[in-house]
């Protein structure tokens, strides 16, 4: 008996490994996707290990050194220093930390409810349940996102937490719609009917039968969304509604440095480039994921 259970476990594991290997094969066909992934991994590692790999971790937050202010890029300061003497390179790396954190929290908060509501709405398609959920979704989607984010952060005190909360609130309707589209077409598939007819519970059908079939578009959208969330976060902090100084936020850095263009260009250009690179990397990874999930036709 024990032996059998072990064999069963190993076999399941082997199957999972095989699925991953196949996924990687499809992903790696496109060198750009691989590049995107490498860049993301590097950024991720850098962000995670920020205090340990940056030359001047103390300069990330509250710090002043007016003697060193406004220095152009050099060997000691790769990206130069900003107007109050902080090392731009260090701040960019820490800035990544906050941007990635923002992305993860927003998506974490926003995706799950959206997905669950979408599944429920799709399963109960044609009933009042669907109507209530989808009309609520419509209302949220009708408001322009930036306006909504502005309104919320303006109502509450502008800081990173509230910024995340505001953006998360914007995000769930998109996932709800996406999942609704997939789940309502899945609804009529025979394997769902079969589960119903067998007597499976609704929870089982939603999460065990339908959800695995929705994962592909959800994951792809999440990677592409990371870029958008980061950009939105940067936009909010650019206009001063997000994380407040001295928190190293890429958007704030761009705003601050913009006043000094074109003379002290390094203060703006490097953070801006950092934003562009991370968003591009996410997009490339999203494209690659789409390839992985694309159904082959042979």
């Amino acid at each position: 008996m024990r032996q059998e259970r072990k064999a069963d476990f190993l076999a399941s594991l082997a199957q999972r490994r095989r699925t991953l290997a196949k996924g990687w094969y499809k992903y790696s066909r496109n060198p750009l996707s691989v590049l995107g992934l490498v860049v993301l991994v590097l950024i991720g590692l850098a962000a995670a290990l920020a205090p340990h790999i940056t030359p001047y971790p103390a300069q990330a937050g509250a710090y002043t050194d007016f003697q060193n202010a406004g220095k152009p890029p050099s060997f000691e300061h790769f990206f130069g220093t900003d107007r109050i003497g902080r090392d731009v390179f260090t701040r960019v790396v820490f800035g990544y930390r906050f941007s990635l954190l923002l992305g993860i929290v927003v998506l974490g908060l926003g995706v799950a409810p959206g997905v669950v509501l979408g599944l429920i709405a799709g399963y109960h398609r044609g009933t009042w349940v669907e109507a209530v959920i989808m009309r609520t979704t419509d209302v949220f989607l009708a408001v322009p996102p930036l306006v909504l984010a502005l309104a919320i952060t303006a109502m509450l005190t502008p800081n990173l937490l509230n910024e995340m909360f505001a953006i998360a609130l914007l995000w769930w309707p998109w996932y709800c719609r996406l999942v609704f589209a997939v789940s309502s077409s899945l609804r009529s598939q025979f394997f769902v009917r079969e589960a119903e007819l067998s007597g499976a519970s609704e929870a089982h059908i939603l999460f065990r039968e339908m959800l695995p079939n929705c994962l592909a578009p959800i994951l792809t959208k999440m990677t592409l969304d990371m870029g958008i969330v980061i950009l939105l976060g940067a936009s909010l902090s650019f206009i001063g509604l997000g994380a407040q100084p001295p928190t190293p936020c890429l958007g704030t850095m761009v705003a601050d440095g913009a006043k000094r263009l074109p003379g002290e260009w390094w203060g703006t250009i490097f953070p801006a480039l950092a934003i562009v690179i991370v968003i591009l990397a996410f997009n490339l990874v999203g494209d690659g994921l789409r390839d992985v999930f694309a159904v082959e036709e042979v």
Partner: protein
Amino acid sequence: MPESILSVEHLKKHFPTKQGLVRAIDDITFSVAPGDTLGLVGESGSGKTTTAQCVVGMYPPTSGEIRFKEEQIGTAFKRRPKYVKGDLRIVFQDPGSSLNPKRTIKQILSIPLKVHHIGTQHDRLARMKELLNMVELPADEYLYKYPQAIGGGEKQMVALARALATNPSFVLLDEPTSALDVSVQGKIINLLIRLQRELNLTYLFITHDLSLMRNVSSRVAIMYLGKLCEIAPTVEFFERPIHPYTKMLLSSIPVVSDAEEALKPRKAISKGEIPSPVNIPPGCSFHSRCLARNGRCAEDDPAMVEVAEGHFVRCHAALESELSGHGAA
């Protein structure tokens, strides 16, 4: 009449749609004796699949009764008692979509076992292997595969194993082999016949393939636009088809030998299109394509009459010629 395990009486199922009322099933009555195989044959719009779906509980009937083992089950599956769900099972037509592509065979088979609390977790693994062995699939290999990795015939065998997981007494087979190659079909049909004997199963076998029906079922029922045209025991049915639609169907079958060609009715060449179920012709719904029609056919809908032991027909013209002793037209 022998005691029946499933009996359907005056079943109707109507669907209101934008184009009008679709009378998918329009008053059908039949029963199946235990251990039998009733073949339900029809083309598109005949209502055969809807009938299976009503019997298994996907839709509540608009009116009429469905009795399973003497118990009234004519409701949607939500209201049915759980043991009925385990006792009356269905194998769907399209192997491609009846298995969740994102679940392994093991996960797929475990659903009915879990839902009906069959055995403990330890037992279930053994039961799954037993089921796969029953359908002649190598268990150790197949348990961990995904549906895309196996062929159409094998998918149907897994669907069958899933249906049998709860030890049912009745299995509905909705065109189980229509999407499969003929060499695979043979394997599955023989499997079905063998399992029927071993496990005491009763089948309601739905198909459009009359040649298959000839070799599989003990009774045959023909449906057209929601109504039954003819029911008879198989041999009687093929030797003495009476209803004009039956004859048209038989004459349209592509056969592979001269011997079979000789069995096909000669003068019943197919003509006309199958009307849309929203626009059913008045009177006898087949009259617009019928070669034997007379005055009554466009006005009166005929009733089902027993013309020989166990042989029922619903047709004015046929009855008249039967009664006058001249035999089928």
